[in-house]
């Protein structure tokens, strides 16, 4: 398994955020984790990134126990935050080069260009400072960074929040490309439409555990109306 949560529990004081969360994501699969505010989506991402230690249970990334070796787990994960903030004074190319250097990844120029090309960022923008970039363009740079790192797991936090429909469509195409490359993607989102369009499986997170899980069968996609109903039920349960 590329990503595996087994009986994850997370308490903050008396507040129980995760209560035995169990799910997994295979290589080449897109898993959408849906849930209302405070359902534990961000906590789940933090546990996979090793930014917090679970109260109980385990999070594994490509069979690496995150708690025992968070750096090794992070070496296999590319993370795209909800609000992409990069270095405004550097260009897109430089941002990726610098962050790849920090991540001790290959910083070959061709690799960076290939990634920027793959996310569809116009060439003229590659050597412009990020100060003048739109949110969608920044998102593309962050995803280009993820692609350039050539890691097996992609974690996305509300990836389409604030993107216009065209940018969202571009983004979904990128996820398809990643899936073809065998990348396991976990996206936490409120975007039912987006999840229905690209996800292979959708988990509904409520009360700190997967309340329900839907699987796309063959070429059949999800029924958005049914998804919405399920989402509301999960929210009501929470």
């Amino acid at each position: 398994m590329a990503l595996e949560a087994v009986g994850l529990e997370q308490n903050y004081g008396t507040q129980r955020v995760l209560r035995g969360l169990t799910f997994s994501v295979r290589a080449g699969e897109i898993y959408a984790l849906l849930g209302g505010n405070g359902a534990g989506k961000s906590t789940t991402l933090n546990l996979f990134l090793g930014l917090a230690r679970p109260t109980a249970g385990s999070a594994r990334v490509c069979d690496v126990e995150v708690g025992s070796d968070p750096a090794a787990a992070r070496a296999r994960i590319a993370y795209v935050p909800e609000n992409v903030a990069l270095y405004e004074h550097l260009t897109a190319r430089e941002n990726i080069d610098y962050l790849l250097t920090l991540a001790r990844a290959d910083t070959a120029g061709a690799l960076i260009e290939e990634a920027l090309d793959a996310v569809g960022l116009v060439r003229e923008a590659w050597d412009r400072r990020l100060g003048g970039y739109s949110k969608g363009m920044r998102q593309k740079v962050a995803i280009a960074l993820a692609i350039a790192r050539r890691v097996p797991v992609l974690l996305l936090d509300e990836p389409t929040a604030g993107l216009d429909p065209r940018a969202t469509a571009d983004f979904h195409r990128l996820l398809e490309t990643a899936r073809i490359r065998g990348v396991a993607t976990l996206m936490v989102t409120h975007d039912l439409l987006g999840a229905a369009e690209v996800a292979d499986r959708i988990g509904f997170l409520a009360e700190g555990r997967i309340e329900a899980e839907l699987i796309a069968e063959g070429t059949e996609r999800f029924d958005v109306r049914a998804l919405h109903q399920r989402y509301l039920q999960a929210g009501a349960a929470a």
Partner: protein
Amino acid sequence: MNRFRYELRLLLRSRVAAAALTLLLVLSAVAVGAGLSASARQTALIDRVATAQARDFAAATTQYGKPDGEAGYAAYYTFHLTSDRPSSLAFAAMGQRDIQPYVLRVRLLGLQAQLYETETVNPELALPGPFDFAFVLIYLAPLAVIVLMHDLVSGEREAGRLRLLSALPVTPGQLWLRRAGVRLMLVLLALLGPFLVGALVAKAPIWGVAILSLVAILYVAFWAGLGLMVGAWGRRSAFNAATLVGCWIVLVLLVPALANAALSRAIPVGRGVDLTLAQREAVHHAWDVPREAVMAPFVAKHPEWKDKARVGGGFHWKWYYAMHEMGDDGVAGQVAAYRASLAARQAWTERLGWLSPAAAAQSLVHRVADSDLQAHLAYQDNVTAFHRHLQDFYYPYLFSERPFTRKDFARAPVYAPRGSSSSTPVVPLLALLVLSLSAWAGGVVGARRTVS
């Protein structure tokens, strides 16, 4: 190298950081220039006095170096030059050289009345000390470090990048330590660059330069470590800056000032001028007592003149100079107590380094530059030894009542400058090392715990 280039670019993009580094570089350069200039002024003054002294000595030779010349007159009117040239590292830390005399013209008269003759210094102007490299290092460099370090982590958090950085496969400790290291290195470059140029110009000894550089590195490292520790707390940049400035006020200003006040009360030290007055009073008193009261202890001290120490009822130079020497001996206890108090204060000041890195650095730089109180006392010791040579030279003429001629002037002792008393005191160096390592240990622990 690639990473270093990026870290440098990102840091220097911050106008405040770039301004702080530029200002530190300029201030360091100005301070080194001012130190070299002050050092050159003192040397030039010593040379000018030496020229004037040669004229004065020649005039005394002409006037008192006659075939039937009296040694008493010659010794009374002839001044002998002593001077204490600045060490080649004094440009970096002038220490007490701006308030203590470095040129003294002494005669055969009582020494204690001559040692503390100096120009009056405005104490308010002397209080902040000279603007030299030591001032920039101890007072200003920590402020530059604070500017560069206070937002090391919080700046990334406030810009929204911390979560992305934390998700990279690099441990927080490595990430922040490297960034702190780059900042530390830039501060040291801005600080030590001008100092090293100054050391080349002044032809300073390599060992001294190395020790002074080590002190600067440890002191700046302490502040960088403290900056890393505070910066990793997870508070806002403004809070971090306020905390670090508070630390600066306490460690650089308050602790040394309070400790100085406490030391002044605990170890009272008289003034040098009090010794002058006491010696003069002893000499004046000697005029009013029977001559035997002066000559008996003198003969006991100098049995070689036992048979030639008789003086009649009128004035005699033998009696006069014996009065002066006995005046010096009369205050010997006070002199010893005065110096013991100074030594005790010095020892406590060095121990103060365990509480304040500024105090430790200050003790070290002035000791290495040979410009502190200890250096001045070494100069006084050398003048005292020279004064004994003068006694050994003049007394045979005085007590044997031999004429003092022009040729005898030429045989008068010439002051040999003291050797360097520079040293590296272990206590403050150890204190500075321990404080720096502790600050970095705290910084490393804090940085490792940094999360988004």
